[in-house]
């Protein structure tokens, strides 16, 4: 066991990554209470095994690995339960919208509420969801993500690609259902400016019917 002072320093450093772990846990468990349990458990385990952390390596990745391993072992049961993504084929929102004459970028993505984007992420199978969390949300390199998930880099890349396709499909379905785009591809509402300010993704950007 480490000296108290060293232990406190370790804990303090580990806690600088709390938001990353909490966000990850929330997206994995879909439940704030379960997320807190999972994160607390992960921190206790990290403290217990701090000797196995190598100074100068990526502590965030190390902590995230502990957390997601706990999730799979304890909260999720068996890794085999994961349902792989249905074959979404080469359907992608971008191509779909372009074929239908809509301008996908500013006119669609900027109008989708943050909560809908989060819910599209939540609908991904967990093995794909965690790659999106690591690479897109937390900015992990493929190498760090591969290490965290204990898979080859090629697996990170293929899961990420499939996950993004699925995200586009979910968001397209939502855009059609909510009237942001009509199934025939014509956009509703005035075009948006495409700049820093309009890039804010929020509920108010969903036009009322």
């Amino acid at each position: 066991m480490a000296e108290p002072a060293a232990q406190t320093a370790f804990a303090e450093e580990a806690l600088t990554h709390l938001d990353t772990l909490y966000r990850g846990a929330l997206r994995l468990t879909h439940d704030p209470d379960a997320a807190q349990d999972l994160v607390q458990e992960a921190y206790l385990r990290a403290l217990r095994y701090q000797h196995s952390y190598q100074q100068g390596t990526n502590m965030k990745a190390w902590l995230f690995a502990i957390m997601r391993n706990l999730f799979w072992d304890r909260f999720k049961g068996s890794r085999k339960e994961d349902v792989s993504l249905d074959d979404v084929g080469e359907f992608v929102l971008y191509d779909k919208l372009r074929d239908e004459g809509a301008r996908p970028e500013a006119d669609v993505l900027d109008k989708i509420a943050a909560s809908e984007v989060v819910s599209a992420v939540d609908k991904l199978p967990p093995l794909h969801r965690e790659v999106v969390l690591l690479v897109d949300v937390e900015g992990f390199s493929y190498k760090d993500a591969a290490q965290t998930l204990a898979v080859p880099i090629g697996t990170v890349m293929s899961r990420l690609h499939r996950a993004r396709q699925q995200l586009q499909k979910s968001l397209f379905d939502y855009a059609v259902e909510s009237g942001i785009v009509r199934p025939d591809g014509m956009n509703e509402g005035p075009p948006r400016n495409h700049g820093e300010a309009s890039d804010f993704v929020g509920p108010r950007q969903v036009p009322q019917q």
Partner: protein
Amino acid sequence: MRCEECSDKLDRFVDRELTNTEALEVQLHLEGCPDCMEHYDFQEHLKRVVKRSCDCDVAPTAFREKLRQILS
């Protein structure tokens, strides 16, 4: 570079995972190919939208304090 190769490398380009040389080649193709450029814009934007949307969740202050107590 052909569109097919550009499209193969798009994920890695968006994620800044290409070598400088590869990235430059993609960049050059994008500048001369409106189709691929639009595709790139969309992918890059999707990534930012996903990040921004998920970033809204942060650990509650009370939970942070509780952990600090437990861990010290």
